[in-house]
């Protein structure tokens, strides 16, 4: 024993072993340094942008004291408290997700519908949604479901085509109703349908009917209230049915059914309340807050070239959202279809296999092609060949769609590949056809991965500048785009333009503030991706 210990000691003490260990340590230090270089430079960059945007040094000490008292202390205390109790933490996270998500979705819906004309949106939504809903309802009752799947798809397409064909006749008829009623059709009805489905699945149809009636009556009450108060009821209607209803549903459900965690739903309200309290005290005491460039007028005004504090980016923001929205409608079905085909259908051998390999190599390479080249492609295709005109929404959406197509294909293929083969074999073993296996096993399992890849591609597309310059997308407009063939402005172009403004308030204030807006938009998209992925991950594994 003693001699063994001595030999081990000798071994540890030998120069070779020590050198070997030193090498290991040095390698580890090099890895830490490599990690830190990236993180530290990003932190410095974002810190710099945030510093320029919010101008923290212009605020007085009292302002900081007020907000430490009203905002930081209670929120931090609540968060610490929630972290200690897992059920409360979970309820807290759920409340934050539903409040943030519902507000975001309803605001974006309102902004986009408002830009595109709510009546048009209503027309297409009704014609696109009612036929499949009717078929779906029929399928629930009928035992024979062979044709319902294809019929849902076909009826949606036919409905939209009908709406487009009969547009000239129907649009004046739809135009009779007040604008807010159109929003009831766009927002309240789908929300009501989702609530009804969820309630009927969990409790009974009777309760579902009650819930839908409550939603409709509540929306009507809000609209009537707004009309009486002399406010245009559209936004209140959208906010009530798009945000208040789902928030109320989730929060109420948590409070009623999760007695252990119910206190957690207070989290977002603590945050909102303390911000409001801080703002109230700030207003009444009259202290000097920071002269931030990220103001409501930046978000809601249109561009002003002379006064930095009046400059706004609303049309550019809406333009970017509309372009990226249409882009996803164009690109995702194509990309996901291609990925499923390449991954699930193509055989590995024979001339088809070789063709598929060639295709895959090309797609992987296309993912790295500089975006300017896609701009030239868009110019050649949409302007010179199809004659759509330069800088219209559909040209911009199509060009960006080409840009993200390979990225989405590659990520969707990756997601499909990660589904274990044993699942497919098990499905085949039970007699399922390839289509049935795909529909019920493979795609649901791969869905979170596909979704993550696609939303990251969206985030990439919204920041693209070079291809938009080439196809002459506008830098500045004063109105939001109102259709596929209307011209739109894009946010990154306005950032680029403001960068060469002679007034330093633009270069060092408005530019970082707009960059922060773009970053927040991107972060919100990424957060949505993560939340959806987590949700579906849980659904498929439980």
């Amino acid at each position: 024993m003693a001699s063994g210990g001595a030999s081990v000691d000798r071994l540890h003490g030998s120069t070779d072993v020590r050198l070997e260990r030193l090498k290991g340590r040095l390698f580890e230090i090099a890895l830490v340094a490599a990690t830190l270089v990236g993180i530290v430079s990003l932190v410095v960059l974002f810190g710099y942008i945030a510093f320029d945007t919010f101008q923290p040094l212009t605020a007085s000490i009292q302002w900081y004291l007020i907000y430490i008292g009203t905002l930081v202390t209670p929120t931090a205390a609540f968060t610490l408290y929630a972290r200690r109790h897992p059920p409360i933490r979970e309820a807290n996270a759920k409340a934050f997700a539903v409040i943030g998500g519902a507000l975001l979705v309803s605001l974006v819906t309102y902004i986009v519908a408002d830009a595109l004309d709510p009546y048009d949106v209503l027309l297409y939504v009704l014609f696109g949604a009612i036929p499949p809903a009717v078929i779906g309802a029929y399928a629930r009752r009928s035992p024979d479901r062979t044709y319902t799947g294809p019929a849902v798809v076909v009826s949606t397409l036919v409905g939209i085509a009908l709406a487009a064909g009969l547009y000239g006749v129907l649009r004046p008829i739809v135009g009779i109703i007040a604008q807010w009623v159109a929003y009831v059709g766009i927002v309240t009805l789908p929300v009501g349908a989702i609530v009804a489905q969820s309630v009927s699945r969990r409790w009974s149809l009777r309760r579902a009917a009650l819930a839908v009636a409550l939603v409709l009556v509540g929306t009507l009450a809000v609209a009537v209230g707004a009309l009486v108060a002399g406010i245009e009821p559209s936004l209140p209607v959208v906010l009530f049915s798009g945000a208040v209803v789902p928030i109320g549903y989730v929060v109420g459900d948590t409070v009623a059914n999760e007695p252990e965690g119910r206190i957690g739903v207070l989290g977002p309200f603590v945050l909102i309340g303390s911000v409001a309290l801080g703002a109230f005290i700030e207003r009444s005491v009259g202290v000097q807050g920071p002269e931030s460039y990220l103001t409501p007028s930046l978000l809601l005004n249109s561009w002003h070239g002379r006064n930095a504090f009046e400059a706004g980016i609303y049309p550019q923001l809406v333009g970017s959202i509309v372009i990226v929205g249409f882009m996803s409608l164009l690109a995702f079905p194509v990309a996901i279809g291609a990925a499923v085909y390449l991954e699930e259908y193509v055989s590995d051998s024979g001339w088809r296999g070789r063709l598929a390999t060639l295709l895959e190599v090309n797609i992987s390479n296309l993912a790295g092609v500089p975006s300017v080249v896609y701009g030239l492609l868009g110019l050649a295709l949409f302007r010179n060949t199809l004659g759509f005109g330069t800088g219209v929404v559909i040209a911009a959406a199509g060009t960006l769609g080409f840009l993200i197509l390979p990225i989405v294909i590659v990520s969707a293929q990756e997601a499909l590949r990660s589904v274990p083969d044993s699942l497919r074999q098990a499905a085949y073993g039970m007699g399922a056809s390839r289509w049935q296996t795909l529909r019920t096993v493979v795609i649901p399992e791969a869905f979170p991965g596909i979704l993550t890849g696609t939303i990251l591609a969206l985030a990439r597309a919204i920041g693209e500048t070079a291809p938009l310059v080439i196809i002459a997308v506008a830098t500045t407009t004063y109105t939001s785009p109102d259709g596929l063939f209307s011209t739109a402005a894009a946010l990154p172009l306005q950032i680029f333009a403001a960068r060469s403004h002679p007034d330093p308030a633009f270069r060092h204030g408005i530019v970082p503030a707009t960059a922060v807006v773009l970053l927040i938009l991107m972060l919100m998209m990424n957060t949505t991706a993560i939340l959806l992925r987590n949700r579906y991950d849980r659904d498929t594994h439980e």
Partner: protein
Amino acid sequence: MAYDSNVSESVSRRTLLASTVAIGATALAGCLSDSTGANTDGDSLSGDIRISGSSTVYPVAQDISRQFQEDHSDVNFNLTRDGSSGGFENVFIPGDSDINNASRSIADEEVQQCRDNDFEPVEFFIAQDALTVVVNNENDWVDSISIEDLKKIWSPDSAPETWADVNSEWPDEPFDLYGPATTSGTFDYFTETVVGEEGKIRDDFEGTEEDDQIAQGVKGSQHAMGYLPFAYYTNNPDTVKALTLSEGDSDPVEPSIEAAQSGDYPLARPLYFYANMNKLQEKEHLQEFIRFYVNEADKDFIANDIGYVPSSEKMVEDNVANLEAGINGEYKHS
């Protein structure tokens, strides 16, 4: 299974009934309250106006279009910054834009290409952009420079190494030169006016797209020299020191709006915009906008807030004459 579907049938019928009543009530209420929907501000002008071209003229076009849009909310503007040549080639000549901004006059080939596409470009000379030659704030040996010396400094034929090579009273220190990148219209104008041939310049200067970087470069080196748009200099006067310019035997002139407007300052670049005459004849709102534009172009804000040299009264008169000729289809570019 059968029992379930019966239940769902009976209840869903009730749901259907309830929701039909609710939707009906909603729709009815909506119809009744539609008297507030009218949205007319008594302004007959409506339509789109697309403005492409030079990023130098963009601030003027942006500001004037914003003012016009405030009074005529149904007119939609669309402004792109593609550069003078890019705007002509990609957007204006194919007939996509109504107006193309240019920081130089239109070239003969471009006029020909417009005519090949069956329209005449109508020229409007709206402002000037004075260039400022700047040196470091700690530079105490030069306050004024002649165009001839500038040519000697920037020309590739002489390309002096040190300040003393140009003037023996100046220090024997190497030049540190900053200017706009070769893609810029400012670069084209400077080389043509000072060096004598467009695009001809010594190759050891630091070219950049950003005026800010020129100013920072000159600020960072005591023996530096550069040139900038006057608008940038007036907004950032403390960063660098501007030189007065003389041409031949004339007295040195300080860079200023007044000097540029009177024609005494030798480095003032004309800024134009060109309108598509066919669209001008078709679109009433375009006529109104250009009328507003040319009449607004002699106002103080162009000098005070944008930093350009505004139109003189003579220029406004010429522009109005061109506009009327364009509306009547009689304009011919020469």
